[in-house]
């Protein structure tokens, strides 16, 4: 077991050297984790994570259940702090600033790094109030401005046409797929720089899933996306870069086509070809 861990570690370090510098050089780095470790009580859930995410990329994080992929994504906007027993070590830089440093406002971080959750979680309010929530919290009060933001966000989340005539209806009257797009619109309304998605389609039917995947392609023009998924086909379809997590380590992180067609680690190959996980 110890041997295996050392081996994983070595692999991880090898992989942290970026493989395709030509493409990556042009894009700015948004997130970079350096030897990031996380514990839930005594459980060492994330071990020495070194990953870099670039602007306007869709980054997929894949791996079997319990491998730490959701935990890692929730660390990026410090949502893991809501669990009292969590302890972390190491750095995560967002645009060059350590998100854990004392001067960093967690509210600002979460405003700039939006999040879409596994289960659609709209507020029990009208569609309009859901989308206007973020701007209102951050002090935008003028009705005309809010109207504009709501329409723009709903359009960006490709749901405007479906809901424009019933903006005052409760968001819970919508289907699961529509609710999830409302949640995406809600996240977009504060104009974040990065959108974290924690298995955003796992509770949705195939048609809604396709809609959200198409939407991600649109969104990547303006946003960087980091998506956790247990669905390997989804990672292969939508992402530019893929990181494979296994038992709290990053086994391999590379361009998506490399991960799926020519992975360098045996476990990555076994996982993406469906032999385990």
């Amino acid at each position, binding site marked *: 077991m110890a041997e295996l861990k050392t081996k994983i570690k070595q692999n991880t370090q090898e992989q942290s050297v970026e493989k395709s510098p030509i493409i990556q050089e042009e894009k700015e780095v948004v997130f970079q984790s350096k030897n990031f470790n996380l514990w839930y009580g005594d459980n060492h859930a994330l071990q020495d994570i070194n990953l870099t995410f670039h602007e306007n990329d869709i980054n997929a994080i894949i791996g079997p259940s319990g491998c730490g992929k959701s935990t890692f994504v929730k660390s990026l*906007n410090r*949502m893991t702090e*809501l669990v*009292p027993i969590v302890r972390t070590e190491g750095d995560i830089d967002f645009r060059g600033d350590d998100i854990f440093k004392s001067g960093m406002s967690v*509210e*600002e*971080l*979460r*405003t*700039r790094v*939006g*999040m879409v*959750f596994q*289960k659609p*979680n*709209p*507020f*029990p*309010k009208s569609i309009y109030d859901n989308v206007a*929530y*973020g701007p*209102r*919290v*951050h002090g935008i009060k003028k009705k005309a401005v809010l109207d504009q933001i709501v329409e723009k966000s709903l359009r960006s989340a490709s749901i405007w046409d479906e809901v424009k005539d019933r903006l005052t209806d*409760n968001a*819970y009257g919508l289907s699961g797929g529509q609710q999830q797009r409302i*949640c995406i619109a*809600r*996240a977009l309304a*504060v104009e974040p720089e990065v959108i974290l998605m924690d298995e955003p389609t796992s509770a949705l039917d195939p048609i809604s899933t396709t809609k959200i995947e198409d939407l991600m392609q649109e969104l990547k023009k303006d946003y960087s996306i980091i998506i956790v998924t247990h669905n390997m086909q989804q990672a292969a379809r939508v992402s530019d870069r893929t990181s494979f997590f296994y038992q709290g380590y990053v086994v391999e992180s590379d361009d998506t086509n490399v991960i799926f067609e020519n992975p360098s680690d045996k476990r990555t190959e076994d996982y993406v070809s469906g032999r385990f996980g």
Partner: protein
Amino acid sequence: MSNKNIRDQIINNTRNKSNIFERMIPVILLLITSVSILATIGILVTLLSESFEFFSRVPITEFLTSATWQPYVGDGEWGIWALIMGTLKIVAIAVIFAVPIGLGAAIYLSEYASDRVRRIIKPILEVLAGIPTVVYGFFAINFVNPILQGIYSGFGLYNAVSAGIVVGIMIIPMIASLSEDAMSSVPTAMREGSLGMGATRLETAIRVVIPAAFSGIVASFVLAISRAIGETMIVSIAAGSMPNASFDVTEPLQTMTGFIVQITSGDAAFGTDLYYSLFAVGMMLFIMTLLMNVIASWFTKRFKEEY
């Protein structure tokens, strides 16, 4: 061999089960349920019929419009407003005192406190709810009132403020505990949605959790206010027995419940006006709490956030 036997046995047992017993169950449960319904109807009928007798002696217009309640003077003056004002003063002071504290405690317990702190504080709150009201009564006279008189010497021994505050203290646990239950049952996913947008904990509590728990919170207010309206012991001990319709909170007063206690424990001979007035006042109390419930159910329907 046993497989076959067990299956037969189970099927036989199923067939032998008595259907009559099953069919009797709803009837028995209905009878049990009707005890409370019948009691309510019985009380209502008594209140109504005896109130009719009262209103055949005293004009209902005097009862509802006059603000002087003087049952002992001459033929008596029967203006219920003097008693209603007494009750309203007590309830208003109690609510002003208890709602912010109760809601604040609920927000703290459900949104900020750790599990450990919650596990310690909540039972303590519930103990507060179990203190006999007669104890609260002398607490008002012997503890709260001296403090009030120290602040402003115009307070008499019996006044609305000390009784009102103590009634407020009595209903705090009810508001805190029930509101906390309602807020805790709001799914964590909703809080995450709000915190994930960069909202603070307080913003999340005020803009997401409280609206989502609104019907439960209003229900706690209604129960608490109904209890304050019906509270008898504290006001009998600490608010005095001087019916008056003034807004002065430093003076003694009498609430509807206080009047009923005074008369029932004293000298109302059967068949007198005084005797029948008890039922009219009781009827009024009943209408007030009923009204509270109607307002509350309208309020929750209007503002409920369903999820």
